[in-house]
């Protein structure tokens, strides 16, 4: 992979409306916190996408290793009893 010469990388999370979860929008280059926030604003919220922004240095993110996928995720595949699918839905209840 070519070396990235364009400043440090930051991950951008946008909240679309107050109370909503912050969702990963992408990443930007920046040399400091303020620049990261401004670049995130200019890159990802120009069309009214957000009401709040988080930026996090990319190297502060700890990611799972794809090699661990068997151990991490496969055991969840055959535990249907963990899903709340065996209840009878009360009549009229919608937000469950």
């Amino acid at each position: 992979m070519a070396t990235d010469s364009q400043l440090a990388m930051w991950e951008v999370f946008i909240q679309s409306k107050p109370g909503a979860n912050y969702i990963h929008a992408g990443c930007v280059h920046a040399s400091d916190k303020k620049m990261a926030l401004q670049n995130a604003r200019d890159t990802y919220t120009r069309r009214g996408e957000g009401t709040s922004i988080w930026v996090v240095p990319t190297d502060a993110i700890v990611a799972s290793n794809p090699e661990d996928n068997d151990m991490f995720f496969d055991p969840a595949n055959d535990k249907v009893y963990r899903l709340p699918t065996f209840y009878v839905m009360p009549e009229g209840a919608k937000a469950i």
Partner: protein
Amino acid sequence: MGDDALIHSYRLSEWCSNAPILEEDLALTNFSLDMIGRAQALLTYAGQIDGKGKTDDDLAYRRGERQFYNHLIVELPNGDFAHTIARLLFTSVFEYYFFAELLHSADITLAAIAAKTIKEVKYHMTHATDWALRLGDGTEESHYRMQKAVNSLWMFTGELFETDEATAVLEDKNIAVDMAVVKTKWKQEIERVMKESLLEVPEDEYMQTGSSNGIHTEHLGHILSEMQYLQRAYPEATW
């Protein structure tokens, strides 16, 4: 002020695909779009007051160089990135205090435009200030370039605060703003930013002037010849 927004917008749009990094490319062209919106609002209103049925497009595309009243500083070529930032710093700080005063204008349309504009300009000012700090207090090269830009643009800043009989009449009616107030605040803020950025404030020596009478540098004609080409070559052309 409408012409300032239009011509400065044109200059910033020239950074499209040329900025140092993609994010800055978006920022500068985003400011350019803010300014187009401001130009549209102000020129539309100017056309209405003029009462001759002229639209914002008529004013933007069908006036000659001598009929433009933008400050000279906005028509100057972009130069390097430091030059663009120094200009944006000088003009956005000016615009911030100018529109802050215009919020209290007796003219409700101007006050409403000021209310919308000041949010945009505040961001332009923050962005320019941060870059001035990074470049001024950066490497030897960035400091040199930033100081050079400040020095070469300084003689174009005096014009921002000029007043004439027309603005005096409007000021008496509480429509226009008190430029002395704007100038004091501008100077204070610019001196603060310069100090923090380890840059020297140039002496007030010879100041360029002329734009309030439509006298421009040689650069405006070149902008207009490109900007107005389509409307001049194909009058009434529509999308």
